[in-house]
């Protein structure tokens, strides 16, 4: 036991062994939370976790344990995809939001384009004859229509009407395995 009156850590309790003073698990797996070690042990195994912790400086071990617990929980919840399922979901969210942003930015451009011709034509209307006015109005309508077409395209993409390249767990895995550098594309 670690000391007189102190109970073994959750890992040593589960592994049914003496909890040494320098037990590597003890700081991160207190006895009042047996589930935490149980789930990490189930997915990674005690010896693998011990090896991983030993390879890290002490000040990083708490974060490492927390991320291992997170991954283990994800794997138990989703035995097929684990954390990759969560990454896929978040990547899709990013894509959706970026499309909505593109739509909004297109809309604001349209509004700006509508403002400027209005201001210009307001000053010029007293100098133009009927033919010139008709031509000006016609060209304004064309540019607004083009702007609206782009708006409709962006909107269609965001609402999934067009074939957009959503990330599935498999495609994320393939992307990563083919080119580890592409990992950056997940969040840039």
């Amino acid at each position, binding site marked *: 036991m670690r000391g007189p009156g102190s109970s073994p850590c959750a890992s040593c309790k589960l592994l049914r062994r003496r909890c040494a003073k320098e037990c590597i698990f003890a700081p991160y797996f207190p006895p009042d939370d047996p589930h935490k070690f149980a789930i990490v042990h189930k997915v990674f195994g005690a010896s693998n976790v011990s090896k991983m912790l030993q390879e890290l400086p002490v000040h990083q071990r708490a974060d490492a344990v927390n991320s291992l617990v997170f991954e283990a929980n994800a794997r138990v919840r989703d035995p097929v995809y684990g954390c*990759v399922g969560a990454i896929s979901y978040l990547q899709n969210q990013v894509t959706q939001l970026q499309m909505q942003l593109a739509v909004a930015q297109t809309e604001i451009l349209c509004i700006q384009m509508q403002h400027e011709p209005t201001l210009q034509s307001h000053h010029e209307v007293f100098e133009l004859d009927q033919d010139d006015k008709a031509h000006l109005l016609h060209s304004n309508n064309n540019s607004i229509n083009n702007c609206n077409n782009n708006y409709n395209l962006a909107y269609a993409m965001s609402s999934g009407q067009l074939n957009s390249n959503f990330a599935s767990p498999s495609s994320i895995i393939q992307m990563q395995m083919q080119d580890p550098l592409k990992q950056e594309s997940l969040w840039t």
Partner: protein
Amino acid sequence: MNPKRCAACRYLRRRCPKDCVFSPYFPPNNPEKFACVHRIYGAGNVSKMLQQLPVQTRAEVVESLCFEATCRIEDPVYGCVGIISLLQTQIQKTENLLARTQAEIAVAQTKHSQNQHSEFM
């Protein structure tokens, strides 16, 4: 030794039986794949996980385990949780930018309708 052992049995230096649970997913021409997964999860745990799942899902399981193991080797502290964290940050930033842009749209539309109203007065 059987030259057609899968990468797992080669790594574990054992005979590769006909019904080896690893052999469909760890071909002998890619020894790093099993080495990576074994380093993080251990052969016993991987074998247990595969046996508990239907055959048609096992290929995806192996690929996701490889992905997570690779992430963990590259980032021993955060593993693929680091990627999740970065994605969540990106989502937050994009949401903020979207909210700002939509507010600008609302302001611009209000200004435009006010201008139109003052022209007709």
